[in-house]
């Protein structure tokens, strides 16, 4: 079993940033990601509005991606570290494990999305991931969300991609109308016509396997606001 000082789980902004500093300080560090290096910022950087707003972080991540070696594989246990990858299982002994696994959007049901479960209901995260892969999710989008900068960003992004967009607050029940897919949505007595519903009401830490380690980055801040993620990472690194 290979012994290292740090295993960093997740190669998004926080994971890469931590790995950079740890490696600079001479700690033997390994970084793993189940998808690819660059994390959420890397995915969303394909969206023009997002990339102009978060240019600073995207550039930073792009630089870090060149410098930091990332192993693609899923960490399924953290003590010892066991990684499932396309080349089989690998085991590591780590002195410390950093959880940089990020956040995930709150489920639509928790935001009181009711009615029939038809096609065309997405969390903001799923919608953004799909449109950054050039997938078209409809033509007329209703974004029902709490106030947040990411929502404004998403609105202008959808608009730029040729969607009709409407915004609504999250208040009370969100009733979906439609047979096979979303045909309309009723929120607080008001009816909207749309063929896709995108909801956002905050994020939760993403660590479904309940891996043990020190949480750093968006797993703590649970946001789309990367300045907050940056602050958390800085804070953590200042204590090393």
């Amino acid at each position, binding site marked *: 079993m290979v012994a290292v000082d740090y295993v960093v789980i997740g190669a998004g902004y926080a994971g890469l940033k931590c790995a950079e500093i740890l490696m600079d300080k001479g700690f033997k560090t390994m970084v793993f990601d*189940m*998808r690819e290096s660059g994390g959420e910022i890397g995915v969303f950087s394909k969206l023009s509005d997002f990339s102009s707003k978060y240019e600073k972080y995207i550039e930073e991540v792009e630089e870090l991606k060149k410098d930091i070696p990332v192993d693609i*594989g*899923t960490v*399924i246990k953290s003590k010892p570290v*066991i990684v*499932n*990858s*396309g*080349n*089989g*299982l690998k085991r590591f002994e780590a002195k410390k494990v950093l959880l940089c696994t990020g956040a*995930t*959007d709150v*489920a*639509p*049901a*928790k935001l*009181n999305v*009711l*009615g*029939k*479960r*038809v*096609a*065309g209901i*997405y*969390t903001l*995260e*799923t919608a953004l*991931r*799909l449109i950054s*892969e050039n*997938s*078209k*999710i*409809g*033509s007329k989008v209703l974004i029902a969300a709490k106030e947040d900068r990411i929502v404004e960003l998403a609105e202008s992004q959808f608009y730029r991609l040729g969607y009709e967009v409407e915004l609504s607050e999250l208040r009370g*029940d969100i*009733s*979906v109308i439609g*047979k*096979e*897919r979303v045909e309309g949505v009723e929120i607080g007595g008001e009816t909207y016509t749309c063929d896709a519903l995108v909801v956002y009401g905050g994020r*939760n830490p*993403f660590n*479904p*396997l309940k891996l043990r380690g020190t949480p750093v980055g968006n797993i703590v801040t649970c946001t789309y606001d990367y300045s907050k993620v940056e602050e958390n990472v800085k804070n953590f690194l200042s204590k090393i």
Partner: protein
Amino acid sequence: MYDVAIVGAGVTGCFIAKELSKYDLRVIVFEKKMAMGLDQTKGCSGIIHAFQLPFRSLKGKLCLEGNAMMDEESRELGFAFKRVGLLLIATNPITKLALPFLKWWFSKYVAVKEVTKEEILRMEPNITEKVRGGLFFPSGGVVNPVEMTYTAYRFAKENGVEFRFNCKVKDIKRRPNSFILKTVCGEYESKYVINCAGLYADEIARMIGYDLTITPGKGSHIVFNERGFSNHIIAALPLKPDRRTKGGGALISIDGKAIWGPNLVDVENKEDTSVKREEIEGLKEKFGKLFKRLPKDVIAYYAGVRSIAGRDFVINQPVRNFINVAGIQSPGLTAAPAIAKRVVRMLAASGLELRRKEKIVKPKFTRIRELSEEDIEKLVDQNPDYGKIVCLCNLVSRAEILEVARDFPSFDAVKHITRAGMDCNKCHADIIVLMQRERNKVVKDSAGSELIW
């Protein structure tokens, strides 16, 4: 010419197909949806019932019979089945006093024991202190209904049964010694027809002139992401708030999540699976009383629509060689294997020659979450896609998702069969994009529900 045509690929249709695939027969199954088990089956609660009242009814008998067959079916087909047990609790002095009598009465039909308040609180620490005692039925269990149906479908398919999906049956004409089925994907001739069309079994029955009415009865559920909140199927005594339903319970899913429901709401439309606010509040009130607190993290609300044809199942042969398997509401999932055996006996009695095949194929299913580290290693050596995890919550690999997606470009089928994306939304985009690339098409469950335009 086919020997047997089955209309509908829900759990009953697939189990009948599975049973018939063991014999030298030409069998075909028609399903109007994109995949098997996406209608009533998907919307049910996943409970393998310990019993169904009244015991002397057809559904009561088939429930006990099906329950007893379930371990063997689960081994043969490869679906997950856990006998978690049913706990009926008494929360007031009257039901408490009735326990010894109820125990005596139930024990004539089904294994049961009386449990004390202390025993219940040990079994279920979250149950209210108001509990006074109860009855425990160890034979109650849970399955993933779509997975159960999928394994029967795969068994049938690999043993030669033909399936036509997206293929609605429009009309059936009687010939002297056969039937002509007119479908959206062509005309087919078959000696025998089995009507397992669920909510639409009445329409199919009317095609041969048999009058049957299916009334839709909606049942809504709340799914919580808290696993281990409760460990058994739990319901409160007395049992019969409504003649047509057991009244639901505080249930658990095959992976231990709390599921509360179902209720019973009459609906006009057979496709009405909308969940209403008052239903959610109703379920929370009804089952919330049984516990010290609510489970954490609502993850989904869902409803299924029961096909109700009076009080019992309707399994009959109104015209020669045409068998109705209709009105299969609760406990249809439990009864499915027993219904299949019964239908095969009916076919044999009507003159269908049953010659058992010499070689029967048993499909293999790979679920990496159930494997040891060594086994995963071996598997990844053969196919690196098993090393690429897509859903972290339920440890589902790219290979497992593609296996289902190759049969069905349906997100719901993939989600329910593999459990990928059942616990949170993190991997939904990845699954959708993967399916779109592989199949160039991805729908939720049927034509018109495209996820990518």
